[in-house]
């Protein structure tokens, strides 16, 4: 039994539709369900799964398609009714709030709130640059969450922004904190004297949360989008602009820069710019270690250390001590206990990450210790996973990569992708250790550790059933002020048998202790 409905001129955002689709699929008696806009890609997908009718043929990107296949007519009708109800509720103000007028154009919006100073844009990529351009031309700062925007468009937008003295954060900028307010995927952190500019979303979240945990605070945290320092054509325009803004911001006393390793020429520019601020600065470029100091700029070895250095500098102190919560000896003892329970064939680490930069931080650490890691975030021959969907050897996977998120929500929003992957890893008798990240804050799932704890318990049970032991080490990027409740989230993971460390770096270090001991058994 199939039912396909097309609602003309009814537009809904992709995250809402993906979550609605997931909820329908989980209903009893439902075999397949799709609630999506009538874009070419979606119509192609509907054809592929056999949920296509004459009516869908004429559907346009502004038309909503509800396609459901179920075992009985009743199940399908009930699912359709529920879908329509959810859509109606959404179009009337997002659930219970009083209905408000929503302008269809930026011009209309500015008539209602002429004092607007920022536009947050998260429309599909093919329309995103157009909307950002219009906002900049109206003198508004822009946070562009959307991805799939071309480099040429990015360059053009950032050139316009620099000319006009505006922020152009993104494309693909997932997080920022302006004036103490978290934007898109961001955590609630204390305000304070540390300013951040980051070309990495999960990097910005990790460092700002570590700063908060250490008692420091954030003045402004500016996201630039990942390509800002990676692509020569973008030339670090927003990174340099962000540093300049923090230089002149009286609230900012220390500046922190986080990025994946930039092109050499761009790195030099950033460092000169930082020196020119006259403020103490901390830089963390993920990748091969660049430690030490250049004038007023200190280099950190990992993201947690960047936070610790910044907090010390903001207090007028120098950073001297390591921030590890477990000593070498303690970590070694914990690792020993984990490894002693494993079966003889268990030998590989499997990192399953929602945060791309967190995955890279773990990978860099393991590689420095001589582990050969395969990953979907690598490009070097011999280091790329043959299939991102299947781990082999030591593997670290960024589950937020496009290959996993086409047509389904990011794993920070919907934990089911990682749940499926945990089950796969547990079924592999050679898996010794799972290394995980959890990101809290706005935008993220309401109970990520609760969801994860269930699949972790199952996985541990499965491995124990065949006489082994699955070691699981995790970290939680979040603060006590995030709505998910950090303490409760941690408790849920610990109750499921996970070792929870205070940062991604420390989780990776403990994982390394375990894997060194595992490796020594195989020598």
């Amino acid at each position, binding site marked *: 039994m199939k039912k396909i409905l097309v609602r003309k001129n009814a537009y809904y955002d992709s*995250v*809402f539709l993906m979550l609605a689709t997931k909820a329908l699929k989980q209903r009893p008696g439902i075999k397949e369900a799709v609630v999506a806009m009538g874009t070419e890609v979606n119509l192609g997908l509907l054809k592929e799964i056999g949920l296509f009718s004459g009516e869908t043929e004429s559907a346009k990107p502004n038309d909503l398609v509800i396609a459901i296949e179920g075992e009985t007519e009743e199940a399908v009708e009930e699912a359709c009714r529920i879908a329509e109800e959810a859509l109606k509720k959404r179009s009337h103000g997002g659930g219970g709030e009083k209905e408000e007028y929503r*302008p269809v154009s930026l011009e209309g919006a500015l008539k209602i709130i002429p004092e607007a100073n920022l*536009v947050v844009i998260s429309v599909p990529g*093919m329309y995103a640059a157009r909307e950002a351009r219009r906002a900049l031309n109206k003198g*508004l*700062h822009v946070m562009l969450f959307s991805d799939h925007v071309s480099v040429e468009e990015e360059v053009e937008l950032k050139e316009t922004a620099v000319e006009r003295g505006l922020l152009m954060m993104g494309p693909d900028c997932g997080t920022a904190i302006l004036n103490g*307010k*978290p934007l898109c995927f961001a955590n609630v952190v204390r305000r304070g004297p540390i300013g951040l500019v980051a070309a990495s979303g999960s990097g910005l979240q990790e460092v700002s949360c570590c700063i908060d945990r250490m008692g420091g605070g954030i003045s402004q945290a500016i996201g630039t989008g990942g390509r800002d320092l990676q692509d020569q054509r973008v030339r670090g325009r927003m990174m340099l*602009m962000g540093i300049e803004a923090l230089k002149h911001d009286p609230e900012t006393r220390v500046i922190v820069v986080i990025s994946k390793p930039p092109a050499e020429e761009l790195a030099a520019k950033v460092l000169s710019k930082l020196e020119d601020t006259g403020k103490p600065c901390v830089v963390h470029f993920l990748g091969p270690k660049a430690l030490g100091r250049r004038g007023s700029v200190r280099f950190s070895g990992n993201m947690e250390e960047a936070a610790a250095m910044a907090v010390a500098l903001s207090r007028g102190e120098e950073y001297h001590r390591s921030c590890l919560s477990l000593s070498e000896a303690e970590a070694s003892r914990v690792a020993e206990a984990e490894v002693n329970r494993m079966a003889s064939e268990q030998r590989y680490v499997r990192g399953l990450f929602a945060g791309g930069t967190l995955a890279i931080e773990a990978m860099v650490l393991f590689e420095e210790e001589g582990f050969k890691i395969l990953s979907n975030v690598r490009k070097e021959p011999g280091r790329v996973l043959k299939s991102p969907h299947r781990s082999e050897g030591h593997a670290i996977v960024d589950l937020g990569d496009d290959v996993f998120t086409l047509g389904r929500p990011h794993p920070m929003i919907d934990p089911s992708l990682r749940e499926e992957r945990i089950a796969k890893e547990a079924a592999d008798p050679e898996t010794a250790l799972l290394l995980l990240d959890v990101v809290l804050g706005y935008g993220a799932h309401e109970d990520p550790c609760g969801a994860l704890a269930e699949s972790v318990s199952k996985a541990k049970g499965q491995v124990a059933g065949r006489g082994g032991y699955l070691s699981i080490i995790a970290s939680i990027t979040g603060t006590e002020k995030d709505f998910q409740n950090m303490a409760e989230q941690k408790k849920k993971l610990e109750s499921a048998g996970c070792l929870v460390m205070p940062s991604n770096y420390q989780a990776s270090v403990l994982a390394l202790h375990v894997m060194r001991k595992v490796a020594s058994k195989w020598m």
Partner: protein
Amino acid sequence: MDVKKIRELFSKELVVINMGLESFADNLRKEDVKVLPMDWKPPAGGNKRLIALLEKLGR
């Protein structure tokens, strides 16, 4: 590099126009940010040719 407008932004309350994912506007409201969500739809019904034409006309 003139950052006067950014300094101005840093010294004022954020006032946001949200175009796209509804949840971003909901979350900003929880943080007491003044936010106006737009009823955004693909321009020209998502017709690529028409969009390109509108761009040329500066609309």
